[in-house]
């Protein structure tokens, strides 16, 4: 087990460094970050002053090294727009995004797993068809549009829920549904496929033959094994959802890290954007690492690969 964890950890760290280099390089994509920062009306001298002030006149690798050393200590520089440390800006906003992410994945699991199990127990039944329809529709649904439609129906027409903001739990209902529905189809399909495969296996027949009750067969024997791949998919989806929360947060004006990312991109606030890309990537890397370790612990066969 330990060699597997160490190997997997090494890979995660290597990926993290590569991602950090890419997100830092984004700054140089425009050619001259000083000119971009100074704006179109700036004179040549202004641009030169900014270049020296921010240290853009030094080699890119030197700048990356310094940025990385600082970032490892939790210092991501100062936001061009807010004139505040990026780290504290993001820390303020992260709780909203994390709440949304946890609610979203919980909603997705609570709908997808029972639906997937029910669909697998009775293939081609009404439930199976409803589940298939929901997953096919979910994959084609633009989340920004789904969010707006929910606002029109539940906030404007019916007046049941607040259309935007993040002050009470009621503000999180619609964003949770939108973000959760985004992750639901994949989880549902995997649960259904896993259950179908397990249910046709020999040990389920044995369990039934020895007279175990149907409920016991389903939950103790079948679901336990079918759920293993779902655990790692849920972790991957959680990572994607945090990155995807930018859309949901902008639709519902939830002032979380995703909303901050959107604002900062529009304002050319590159230090904030770099830090956010790095942090969202880190979440993904950490979640997938934990999922792989958990998987290896649950299923020893995984440790060899």
């Amino acid at each position, binding site marked *: 087990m330990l060699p597997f964890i160490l190997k997997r950890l090494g890979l995660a760290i290597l990926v993290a460094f590569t991602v950090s280099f890419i997100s830092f390089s984004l700054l140089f994509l425009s050619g001259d970050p000083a000119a971009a920062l100074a704006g179109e009306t700036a004179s040549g001298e202004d641009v030169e002053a900014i270049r020296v002030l921010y240290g853009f006149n030094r080699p890119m690798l030197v700048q990356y090294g310094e940025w990385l050393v600082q970032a490892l200590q939790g210092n991501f520089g100062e936001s061009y727009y807010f004139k505040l440390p990026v780290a504290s800006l993001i820390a303020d906003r992260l709780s909203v995004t994390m709440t949304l992410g946890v609610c979203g994945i919980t909603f997705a699991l609570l709908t997808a797993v029972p639906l997937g199990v029910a669909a697998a127990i009775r293939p081609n039944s009404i439930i199976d068809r409803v589940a298939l329809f929901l997953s096919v529709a979910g994959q084609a649904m*633009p989340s920004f549009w789904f969010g707006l439609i929910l606002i029109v129906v539940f906030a404007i027409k019916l007046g049941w829920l607040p259309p935007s903001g993040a002050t009470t739990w009621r503000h999180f209902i619609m964003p949770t549904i939108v973000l959760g529905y985004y992750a639901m189809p994949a989880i549902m399909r995997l649960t259904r496929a896993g259950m179908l495969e397990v249910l046709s296996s020999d040990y389920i027949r044995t369990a039934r033959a020895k007279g175990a009750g149907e409920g016991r067969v389903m939950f103790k024997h079948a679901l336990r094994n079918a759920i293993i791949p779902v655990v790692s998919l849920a972790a991957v989806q959680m990572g994607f959802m945090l990155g995807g929360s930018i859309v949901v947060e902008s639709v519902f004006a939830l002032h979380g890290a995703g909303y901050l990312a959107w604002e900062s991109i529009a304002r050319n606030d590159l230090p904030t954007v770099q830090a956010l*890309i790095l942090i969202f990537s880190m979440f993904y890397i950490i979640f997938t690492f934990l999922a792989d370790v958990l998987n290896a612990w649950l299923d020893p066969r995984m440790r060899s690969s």
Partner: protein
Amino acid sequence: MTVQQTIDPLLEEISGPTPRQILRKRVTGHKGLIFGLFVVFLLVLVAVFAPLLAPHSPYEQSLGSRMIEPVFLGGTWEHPLGTDHLGRDYMSRLIYGARVSLLIGLVAAMISGTIGTAMGVAAGYFGGKVDAVVTFLINVRLAMPVVLVALAVVAILGGSLQVVIGVLGLLLWDRFAVVMRASTLQVRRREYVAAAQAIGASTTRVVLSEIMPNIVNNLIVIVTLEMAHAILLEATLSFLGLGVQPPTPSWGLMVSEGKNMMLFEPWLVLIPGVVLFVLVLAINLMGDGLRDVTAPDSRS
């Protein structure tokens, strides 16, 4: 009666329908695939013949006739789907929007397909270090938040059709690489590949004429699904204001422009969203259907 004539029906009875007949039956019996093909074909026609079908110019503004409601909400046939906040004919913008979506989906999927297939096939065929590098790159790519990176790059380079296509093409190769790698691994050990190598065929030749034809089915399925993915992402970027720029008629942009008047005129948001949903749904159904038809045993 000749021997041939007596044998033929017998042969048919023994051997059953020909592969071609089986395939045809599978295709026509697959409702999702038929629906998907039909809708996609229809929207491609709409996109190609947009100038003939659109009742008005998608760009022409007329401030005197702003926010006319669609015909089913009491409007007139002059503007069947009404007009937007600048008095532009909504139906014409939707029709031209099909061009934007399909063009971006197709070209982005072709770029990412080329990159991903090259990486995946190389990883699967050569294995070892090449495989390790490709797997690592896939991991790095998956760790980057797509929407965020795409938004940032478009913001820096400026929003135009070319930039959006380029960014999506360079970002969406991960699924191609994963699937092509797995498919190549499956066929690499087959006898016919070993036979081609044994008679001294070059690597290029083995890959192009022995490996590729046997994994092209999977490739087509992924091309379809990634096309849908690219179309959704373009709409998302344009909705967030950092994709295709006005006045280009993009469905995502139309939703974004209608958003401000959503309180009173929800149809401005509803209509482009429904069209986008139907197109992506149809492409996905087509992709799923193609997978079922070409590889029935991999159905899940």
